[in-house]
């Protein structure tokens, strides 16, 4: 149920983002979701993509500072309070949320969570009744059969 997210270090300089995105384009890799943590000096680009391992190799080969991070994708429906529920469960188990972001994919809301204790977070989410989407499910959702 863990998702491989690419975390990419980008200097705050014109052209650094374009260079990375061009690599995705040239390798025919599809970006499904992205988010950026920005600071005064640099940004951290977080990407969920169609083939994370291939993307990682491609970026690494081209000298990009890239890492694969373990994140979870929780499916959200239209009922209120689901993000609160996920946050409450994790905090009760004393698991910290390092960051999170959400996106829509073909009508489904998905919440990406990076926890400070991946294994424990996995247990908690499995037991919670919340639906955690796997990497395969995301790719299937993105590319309907």
């Amino acid at each position, binding site marked *: 149920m863990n998702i491989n997210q690419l*975390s990419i*270090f*980008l200097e705050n300089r014109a052209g650094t983002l374009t260079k990375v995105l061009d690599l995705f384009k040239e390798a025919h890799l599809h970006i499904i979701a992205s988010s950026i943590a920005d600071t005064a000096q640099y940004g*951290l680009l977080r990407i969920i993509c169609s083939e994370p391992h291939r993307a990682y190799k491609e970026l690494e080969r081209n000298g*990009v*500072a*890239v*890492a694969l991070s373990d994140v979870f994708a929780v499916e959200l429906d239209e009922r209120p309070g689901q993000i609160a529920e996920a946050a409450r469960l994790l905090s009760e188990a004393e698991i910290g949320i*390092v960051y999170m972001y959400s996106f829509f994919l073909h009508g489904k809301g998905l919440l990406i969570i990076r926890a400070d204790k991946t294994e424990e977070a996995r247990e908690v989410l499995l037991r919670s009744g919340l639906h955690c989407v796997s990497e395969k499910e995301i790719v299937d959702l993105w590319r309907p059969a």
Partner: protein
Amino acid sequence: MIWNPNKECMSRDERSALQGKRLHKIVEYVYHNVPFYRHKLQEMDLTPDDIRTIDDIVKLPFTTKKDLRDNYPFGLQAAPQSEIIRIHASSGTTGNPTIVGYTRKDIGVWSECMARCLTAYGVGRDDIFSVSYGYGLFTGGLGAHNGVEMVGASVVPASTGNTEKHAKLIRDLGITGIACTPSYALYLAETMEQIGITKEQIKLRVGAFGAEPWTESMREEIQERLGIKGFNLYGLSEIMGPSVSYECQMQNGSHINEDHFYPEIINPVTLEPLPKGQPGELVFTTLTKEGMPVLRYRTRDLCSLMPGECGCGRTSVRMTPITGRSDDMLIIRGINVFPSQVESVVLSMKEFAPRYMLIVDRINNLDTLEVQVELRQEYFTATFDTPAAIDELQKRLASKLRSVLSIGAKVSLKAPNAIERSQGKSVRVIDKRNLK
């Protein structure tokens, strides 16, 4: 005014005789007390008896910063530890600083030399004098301090930092003299303007400026903005500290305390001594030092010795302002910084590639240092996927740099391979300061 006319105005012949006598004595002293020098002299088939007059100095071996580093910490110390009453340290070329121990007599000579400087600037017992060099391992603070006490002025050990408070003290105490770096003097002038202290409200009239190169136009600006007369003060801890040379009221070259520190100018490439008037690298031999005497120490500072007499009556030789360095040392906020020191810190952290760039600038009259480093691709893992983790890494490097360099640096993280590789000799420093 002249503090010690007997020494500062002695005839050239008399001084040469004194220098020759002292040189023989110091060579004999290090020969018997410092194995490093004994071996060097033996290799050159020299004994102290071969050194009789000051002209014999050219027979002696040079001493370099590397020699000091190789003999860290006390290898070049000549006096037994029980005789050492103070230890200072200055920047080494890598992780280790250069350690200099002083005997009671050394501190006395230093105070005397500093008193000569201050008297030449016009400082006396009625003055209130603020020492705004850093106190601590750096020789600037305590070195100037002792001299101010020696001439009998009231010393205010302001040190560095808290410039607003310092500006108020200058006004409220009626401080008349200050020792600091020239760039700090400009920064002080700016601070005063910001908090509304005018030069008419202060009694400052003398400035002793050193520890970094400065120019005539900087002098004019400082003199104008603070309403003072500014004088050069030169020194280096390997030789003593501030007081090696000083300007007089003529403000035309700095008189060297050459009865204690014998100067030569050499060609930094061939190491041949150069005649007076020719620019080259300044070399000093300490003629009276007990703690850590040095023979023909290569300062790496470029300047020339000035021929001719000075109108002030002192007969000691004058040196021109320093025009540059024969190595890659930088002076940042008065502190000596070697790119190799930064390199040793960067190499000690595996998260960074063994490559760096130093950007030195002067913003609002304060020197700034930026150290650019590259993240090493293979160490950029999921641990570093938050700004908090990256900032922590940055802080770790910054704090290591601070402890090795003694000054703060801004660390800028670059992506792998972002720092330009130059062909051939790599350029590691960009100095944007424009000393006109």
